[in-house]
């Protein structure tokens, strides 16, 4: 009989204790404090972010929800120029989840945190009745330490900044869609899910304060990031369609399904907005990093007050790049 999660695991009694001490404990460093709150030392400026992860399926080519829950939060910290230090992990587990799946997920969460130097210091585990969840939901909160005097932030983006993306866009979105719908793709596409602490560090080292802002284009893709920053900073943007890196198979799958690769989620990519002086150095540093080999400058920031994001097409014409609207739905023919 395969071991599964039952409501007893969430009851607060002996079974809960065993789940925490035998399974969930894998997340924590050996010196973890088993108290009601973790006590952390903080002498510097800190960055905090939180995110909940509800991906289906739980395991997909290139990762699983554990790796995703760690990278998502780590990447939100690193794009603010913060070094990931601590993490909290909230698990909402649906009754019936095989223990083997939980173990795999916890292991990849832990190893991704280790890779980025973040220690899991607090957590919570709940079990909900069958039908009330989708196997497993994870919330992570990350705390990072900022050393730079002027960390990157959307408010610093200015006209003439160069827009750099760190590699192929849309891989994660297509990988999840293909896994969820069992799409028969000729060339399988893996999620780009990866922690970007090191890549971001290298880019910041190279560009210093010339790196005005960074974002990880997750849900909503590049289109959402460019539009959000344009609106926040009161600037426009113009990007070159032919410069934007998209794998041919991602492009083909998107075309068949009527989706725009620029709306698809990424989990291992950075978008950086850099002063024109620093951009070549940042680009060079990114390209030397294994996770940024395909980095490229895709366009530049234009003066406001028009906060429109436009794309130069392969025909030399111009069109608008808009925010994705609602759920991404595949088309008919």
């Amino acid at each position, binding site marked *: 009989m395969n071991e599964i999660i039952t409501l007893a695991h969430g009851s607060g009694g002996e079974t809960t204790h065993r789940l925490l001490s035998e399974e969930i404990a894998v997340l924590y460093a050996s010196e973890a404090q088993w108290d009601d709150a973790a006590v952390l030392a903080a002498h510097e400026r800190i960055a905090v972010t939180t995110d909940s992860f509800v991906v289906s399926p739980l395991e997909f080519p290139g990762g699983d929800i554990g790796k995703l829950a760690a990278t998502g939060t780590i990447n939100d910290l690193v794009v603010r120029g913060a070094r990931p230090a601590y993490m909290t992990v909230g698990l909402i587990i649906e009754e019936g989840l095989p223990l083997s799946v939980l173990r795999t997920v916890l292991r990849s969460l832990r190893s991704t945190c280790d890779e980025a130097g973040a220690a899991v210091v607090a957590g919570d585990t709940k079990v909900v009745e069958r039908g009330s969840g989708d196997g497993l939901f994870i919330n992570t909160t990350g705390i990072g330490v900022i050393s730079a005097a002027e960390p990157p932030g959307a408010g610093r983006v200015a006209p003439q900044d160069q827009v750099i993306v760190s590699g192929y866009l849309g891989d994660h979105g297509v990988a999840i869609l293909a896994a969820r*719908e069992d*799409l028969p793709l000729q060339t399988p596409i893996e999620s780009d899910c990866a922690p970007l602490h090191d890549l971001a560090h290298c880019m910041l080292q190279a560009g210093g304060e010339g790196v005005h802002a960074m974002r990880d284009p997750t849900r909503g893709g590049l289109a959402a990031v460019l539009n959000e920053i344009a609106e926040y900073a009161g600037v426009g943007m113009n990007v070159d369609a032919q410069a934007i890196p998209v794998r041919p198979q991602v492009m083909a799958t998107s075309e068949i*399904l*009527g989706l725009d690769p620029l709306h698809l989620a990424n989990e291992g990519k950075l978008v950086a907005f850099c002063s024109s002086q620093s951009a070549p150095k940042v680009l060079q540093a990114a390209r030397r990093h294994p996770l940024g080999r395909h980095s490229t400058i895709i366009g530049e920031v234009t003066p406001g007050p028009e906060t429109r994001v436009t794309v130069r*097409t*392969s*025909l*030399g*014409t*111009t*069109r*608008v790049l*808009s925010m994705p*609207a*609602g759920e991404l*739905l*595949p*088309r*008919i*023919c």
Partner: protein
Amino acid sequence: MDKVLREEPEAHGGPLGCRRAANLMEVCGTHSHAIAQYGIKQLLPQGVRLISGPGCPVCVTPVEIIDLALAIARLPQTTVTTFGDMVRVPGTDSTLSREKALGRDVRIVYSPMAAVETAVEEPDRQVVFIAVGFETTAPMVAACILEAERLGLSNFSIIAAHKIIPPAMRALLQSGEVRIDGFLCPGHVATVIGLTPFARIASEFGLPCVVSGFEPEDIIAGLRGLLRQIDDAEGRGENAYQRCVKDKGNPRALATTDQVFEATDANWRGLGQIPLSGLRLRWAYSRFDAERRFDVELPTPREHPGCSCGSVLRGLVQPAECPLFGAACTPTTPVGPCMVSSEGACAAAYRYEQ
């Protein structure tokens, strides 16, 4: 061609030169989308207009079909399966996505065969597929019906709402509401039915009809063909998508469709009733017809009173001319199907041109 266009995008008499004003209709929604996506209207010579036509399957599906799907979705032990765009199109009193949020079993599928598989896996449920689309999707749906028959499935059926394109093109020309000087004809549909049906329209009406593919270069080639014919006062069928389209189309796909479906009069949103412009299940397969299988009561169909989709589909109104466009009606809160569908003219205009 790229280079030439970039060097003289606005040059009169350039690659898209034409000596007179002309209204060209792109029949297909995928063309409308690509034209907006690549900013192709910026390359047109002065006086030449592109008008979106009725070739968006979600858009031309009348509200009573949505109402039928909604009513079936509300029945117990029933699963309604559909291509994605349909779930957000408003019916008279709800949408499928709203019904889904209320707990009805509405599932988005990527292929009609997935609906057949669901019927096999869940024999206790009635699985209904909303079969909308044109000549392109009809063969797939026909193949599903044949498969359902082979498997002896009694819990699979379709809402048969397929439409065929050439009768709608004729109806538009006959109505005379809009001056159309040439049709950019749909490459996907032509891949199935061939060039011949479009060439026939061309010779009946003395009107240039050019079949084109969907890459920007294909569309430019198609438009170039149309403008040349107009300049030379010609009106014939022309194939600018030869790598996919043959004169006689795809005989196997046509035979499969013909085995399962027969032509019938159909109601189009905006265009109204058009003789022999729809597909219904032949008598031998009528047991797979959801409309026959389920006895449901339908409301009197009602569309949003301010919605201009009907006029947009006839080419009378450009999306931005609709008073609701971009205000009450956006892709997030669509009032009409042309704003919902990724092939809809309003969605394309909102997304790329606003």
